[in-house]
């Protein structure tokens, strides 16, 4: 026992040395060697090279008594049997502030926790919802001591193991959970999706019918034509940009990968190595990122959007599409429930695939929403409790289905009715593959270096499309040229190889 205590202390010391040096590549090698008696230390101390052992030592860091307790992985948990004797409190940080309210339209946090309490009365879950989650959570993460479960914010993959615990091997977890690719690193899974969304367009079925549109558009040209019909035949705003909210414009980035190319490797593997990715595709100008942003440019320049885009109102638009003042908006499927709840005409709100057809087939990017991650600072008990909660939330709570999302648990096949236009038209859901391990950080690096921030809050670049289209001071191709230039400069400065 004494030896164990000493071991644990050495481990703790090595870990704190690691934390102190976290982020810098010059980990104090001498310190590591002095405590190298324990096999885990060297792996734990080298933060730039996380391995399976890192999480084992992380779990033991603050729980000296449980060093030799086997660490449970996600796939080993049998809900209802594993850990029923656990008695602990865990804290969860979430972005879903709306679900804290008692009058939330749908199942709120309290209702879920009540259900969970029936199965695991010993595990108490405290929930803290944070407005402005994306930036606040990063600060909390840096400060440490934030709790046990967090919706993983934008962290470099290489840093995942510094902050979060592994759920288990990729192989084992993937057999039970969909869409885990975003937070896989070095053979380990660090995040379990809360729900998954597909990318399409929210539209008002009634307005489309009133305008005389009988078949959903499949190409950008058909779509613009349909918007024109709506402008001519109805009083509704054909396409509401939600320009002023900002992030709603950044949402357009989500369509440039799977949706526009049908290629699961495009986003994280090819885009980075592509020369001029925003250029017009020679084979079919109606595909690839160029086509996605062109839809926006054309809609604005043909005045098929709202009159005063600078004063759009995000909360207001929900009611407007519900009662037929707006025909469609380009948003992820998560938005649909909110639009349905905003007025009396829930049945009018539908979801359709983005109008791009690649070689005769339509695709829709599908991907996880925020992922749950478990703090690397958790002791073994809380870690197990947290993992049990997440597994329960994924498999038993019905959260994803309730929120209109695609199934997360691998054996779950319930797809919400919402996706009927997708399944009817045989639209294939494409989940992006992650970048290879040695390039795991490259997408983030490219986003930062080029300042295009694709799928990472690059709202301004999409807003600028609207501005230029409206003011007519720059044509679409030259905007794309500018972006290509920024992308090329970033590729140069990061030394990225151009492959195609």
């Amino acid at each position, binding site marked *: 026992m004494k030896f164990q205590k000493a071991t644990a202390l050495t481990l703790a010391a090595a870990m704190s040395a690691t934390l102190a040096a976290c*982020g*810098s*590549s010059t980990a104090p090698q001498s310190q590591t060697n002095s405590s190298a008696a324990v096999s885990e230390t060297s792996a734990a101390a080298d933060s730039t090279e996380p391995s399976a052992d890192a999480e084992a030592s992380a779990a033991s860091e603050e729980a000296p008594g449980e060093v030799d307790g086997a660490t449970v992985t996600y796939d080993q948990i049998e809900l209802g049997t594993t850990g029923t004797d656990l008695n602990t409190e865990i804290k969860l940080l979430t972005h879903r502030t709306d679900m804290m309210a008692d009058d939330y339209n749908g199942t709120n946090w309290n209702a879920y926790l009540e259900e969970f309490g029936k199965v695991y009365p010993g595990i108490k879950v405290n929930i803290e919802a944070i407005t402005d989650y994306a*930036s606040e959570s*990063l600060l909390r993460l*840096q400060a440490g001591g934030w709790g046990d479960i967090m919706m993983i914010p934008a*962290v*470099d993959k*290489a*840093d995942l193991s510094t902050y979060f615990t592994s759920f288990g091997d990729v192989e084992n977890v993937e057999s039970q959970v969909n869409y885990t690719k975003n937070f896989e690193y070095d053979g380990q899974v660090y995040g379990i999706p809360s729900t998954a969304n597909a990318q399409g367009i929210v539209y008002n079925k009634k307005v489309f019918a009133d305008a005389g549109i009988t078949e959903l558009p499949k190409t950008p040209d058909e779509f613009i034509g349909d918007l024109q019909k709506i402008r001519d035949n109805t009083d509704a705003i054909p396409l509401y940009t939600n*320009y*002023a909210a*900002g992030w709603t414009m950044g949402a357009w980035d989500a369509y440039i990968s799977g949706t526009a190319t049908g290629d699961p490797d495009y986003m994280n593997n090819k885009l980075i190595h592509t020369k001029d990715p925003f250029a017009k595709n020679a084979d079919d100008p109606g595909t690839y990122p160029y086509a996605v942003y062109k839809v926006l440019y054309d809609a604005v320049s043909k005045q098929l959007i709202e*009159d*005063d*885009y*600078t*004063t759009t*109102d995000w909360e207001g638009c929900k009611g407007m599409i519900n009662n037929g003042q707006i025909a469609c908006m380009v948003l992820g499927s998560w938005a649909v429930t909110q639009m349905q709840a905003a007025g009396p005409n829930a049945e009018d709100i539908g979801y359709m695939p983005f109008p791009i057809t690649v070689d005769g087939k339509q695709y829709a990017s599908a991907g996880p929403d925020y992922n749950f991650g478990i703090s690397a600072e958790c002791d073994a008990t809380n870690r197990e409790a947290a993992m049990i909660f997440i597994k329960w939330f994924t498999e038993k709570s019905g959260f994803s289905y309730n929120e209109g999302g695609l199934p997360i648990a691998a054996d779950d096949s319930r797809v919400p009715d919402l996706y009927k236009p997708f399944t009817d038209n045989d639209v294939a859901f494409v989940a992006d593959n992650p970048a290879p391990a040695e390039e795991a*950080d490259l997408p*983030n690096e490219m*986003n*930062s270096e080029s*300042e295009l*921030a694709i799928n*990472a*809050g*690059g*709202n*301004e670049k999409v*807003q600028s499309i609207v*501005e230029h289209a*409206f*003011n007519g001071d720059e044509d679409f191709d030259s905007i794309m040229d500018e972006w290509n230039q920024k992308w090329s400069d970033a590729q140069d400065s990061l030394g990225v190889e151009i492959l195609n």
Partner: protein
Amino acid sequence: MASTTAASGRRSFREFTRTRKFQRTMIIIAFSIIPLFLLFLFTYLPFGEMVGFSFYKMKYVGRRTYVGLKNYQSIFSRKDIFGALVLSLYYMVGALFQIVLALYLATILSMKVRLGKLFKAVIFFPFLVNGIAMGFIFKFFYTHGFVLDTILSWVGFHIDSLPYWLRDQRINNWALVGTSVWRYVGQNMILFIGAIMSVDPSLYEAAEIDGANGFQQFKYIILPGIQTIVTLNIILSITGSLSAFEPSYVITSGANGTGTYFVIMDRIAHTDQKVGLASAMAVFLLCLIFLATVIQKLIFRFAFRNAQAEDESFQAKKARKRAIRAARAEIKAGKEAQKRMLADGRKEDA
């Protein structure tokens, strides 16, 4: 005398701690160490860190590489960053307008005005409105066909002839500056009123007896009397307009050509995660504000050189200096003459 100093030299440390001088020093140190420590911890240390960051290419998490002055070069070479500083000019014009307006209102309201207190409260009220709420208020205020347009249509403007206040890039910055003036004019006014109240009222009476009208009273009594606070307000407003942030951030989120330097900095730091560049921008802005303050100080020193109320006038000072110099020269000349005379006397003696 000599014996006491010798004794104090050999005094034990214990005795030394009982001296008044020592205890006074200790109390000063004990009282000031806490605020100084807090100041250091929360202001100078983070600032020092930030200056350090500005020489690196780094994100919030992950590796950092030393790049020297490259970040500072980017500030000047990038159109979006340096161009954003031009927007400060809009806010500076707004700030000057705001000061003049505040001074005007303060002068009127510090005289006997019916419902004066009510007006003061009404004009000051916007300052109490939360900055985020302001964003919502003005988005609706400027929405086409909403509040502002409705009011303008009452006075005869036709809705079709009115511009889109936030969409039109020629006027949207003025619209934002307007919100800033609306918010801060009350605060400036209250400061001015406070200063005006401190002017001796007997001066007004005397002026009235002498037949001075309102404007003359303002020019010769109020303005010189509140000169310090005017200077302060101008300096605060100008430096404030260099770091204008709120209107642009909450109303338009910096889009459509309204992104001020601060908003761009926020974007670079948080969206693009270029912490090094953003730190360099912050340091550069600090230098700029510092420079602006110094220049203004110099200008005011020059502009008010005749009006330093307590000091003697500039001319008087000059005259006095000249007189002293002349006197010294005379004394010197006199002494030399004396020496010469003495020397001559000795020679004669010899």
